[in-house]
């Protein structure tokens, strides 16, 4: 049990770093998933639109953000945006720093949040779209027969039903986003993984990575628990099929 005691020792030496990293991970995951969810709903509806002027751009968005690595997206957003703004100001840094956008562009957290939100929004839109599509046709017809307008049909029937169907898949997307927060070291931020990396280069002891395992397990357990509660709450009307 040598391993365990040396792990505990490492955890003891570096716990403030780990806790700060954990907080960054939690904040980013929660905020980007909430905002991403808000983005995903209109995106899913746009993808289902019969008007290609609406569904086309939504498809392009979805392919770009789901098709390229998040690492590249974070890089282009964090390092690309300010250089675009600087070009706009003709290379005049002091003038650029006065601009309205600067406080946003100078905040790594905000830009990371934007990148993660755009990305997770694109991913979450897929199960929501699938959920809406799998609403039984009978329900759709019944709603129309009751005289609901397409808009009311979407609001009262398709979205609530579709979202409920999508809950398990959304839980997966949330876990994926949580795991992807390891990328924020690219923008000078320290998440859980970054904290371990820092401890690693201080001790050169690769066991610090094992210390992370319980941290991530707790996070995943928490996410799974939250979604289980959501599912229980919103899908309670469903009769469980007995096998």
């Amino acid at each position, binding site marked *: 049990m040598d391993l*365990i005691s040396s792990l505990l020792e490492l955890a003891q030496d570096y716990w403030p770093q780990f806790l700060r990293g954990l907080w960054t991970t939690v904040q980013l995951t929660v905020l980007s998933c909430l905002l991403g969810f808000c983005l995903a709903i209109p995106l899913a509806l746009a993808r289902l639109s019969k008007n290609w002027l609406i569904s086309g751009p939504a498809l392009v968005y979805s392919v770009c953000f789901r098709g390229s690595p998040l690492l590249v997206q974070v890089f282009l957003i964090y*390092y690309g945006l*300010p*250089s675009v703004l600087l070009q706009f100001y003709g290379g005049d840094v002091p003038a650029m*720093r006065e601009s309205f956008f600067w406080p946003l*562009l100078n905040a790594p957290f905000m830009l990371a949040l934007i990148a993660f939100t755009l990305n997770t929004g694109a991913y979450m839109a897929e199960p929501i779209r699938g959920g809406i599509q799998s609403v039984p046709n009978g329900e759709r017809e019944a709603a129309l027969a009751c005289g609901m307008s397409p808009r009311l049909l979407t609001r009262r029937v398709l979205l609530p039903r579709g979202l409920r169907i999508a809950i398990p898949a959304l839980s997966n997307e949330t876990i994926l986003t949580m795991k992807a927060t390891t990328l924020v070291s690219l923008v000078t931020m320290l998440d859980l993984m970054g904290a371990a990396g820092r401890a*690693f*280069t201080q001790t050169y002891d690769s066991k610090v990575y094992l210390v992370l395992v319980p941290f991530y397990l707790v996070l995943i357990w928490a996410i799974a628990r939250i979604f289980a509660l959501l599912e229980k709450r919103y899908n309670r009307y469903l009769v469980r099929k007995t096998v």
Partner: protein
Amino acid sequence: MKKIVLALATLGIALTSGAYAQNAKTLRLGTEGAYPPFNFTDKNGKLQGFDIEIGDALCAEMKRKCDWVTQDWDGIIPALKAKKFDAIIASMSINEKRKKEVDFSDRYYFTPGMMVARKGSGYKQSDLKGKAVGVQLETTHSQFMEARYKDVNLKQYKTQEEANLDLANGRLDLVMADSAVIDDWIKANGGSAKFERVGDFVRDPILGNGAGIAVRKGDKDLVAAFNKALTAIKANGTYTKINNKYFDFDIR
């Protein structure tokens, strides 16, 4: 835990198609391969740079066959310890902290540190309070800034490249880095028309005493062999030839 370790081990053994025992005669040299002009990979995928040529010259002098291995900077000391290679020639500064982990040869070059800002900013080294300063994570330069300038807004980047980008972008007020490295980048990005040095070159014990070749602790024969070869190439003019190919100043 035991079960996991066991499972991982079994899998590792099952998958070591690429694993092979090391040839005892070949010396394996580790480098980063992304730190121009000292070590970098050119467009033909070949390793180039000052470190590489010095390493090759040393091997020729020692009459040993050498293979280069590239490895991310973060993991370069652990990889040495895990015997992925036998020596690191990657512009690693010799300092006390690292001496606890590895043994060093004599220094094979020395370049001071340098602070760089955008042209016309007029900063002084004595007054950097509140300035946004960028350094590369886990370098002697980041250790220097942490110890000597506690009142700056220090930002640590994974690579020097990213810190430089943020200097150009206007996010950073200045960057603290190795003078030869930052010089190389400035030349490619508008030169002295856009950037200026802040104060003098920086020399400090934290920045170490130049770059050395790192080997595993206790590998005394190898250190001795490197040192002997280093003296030889400095004496026979090989070193000067390589120096002049990359720099217009002496970095010995």
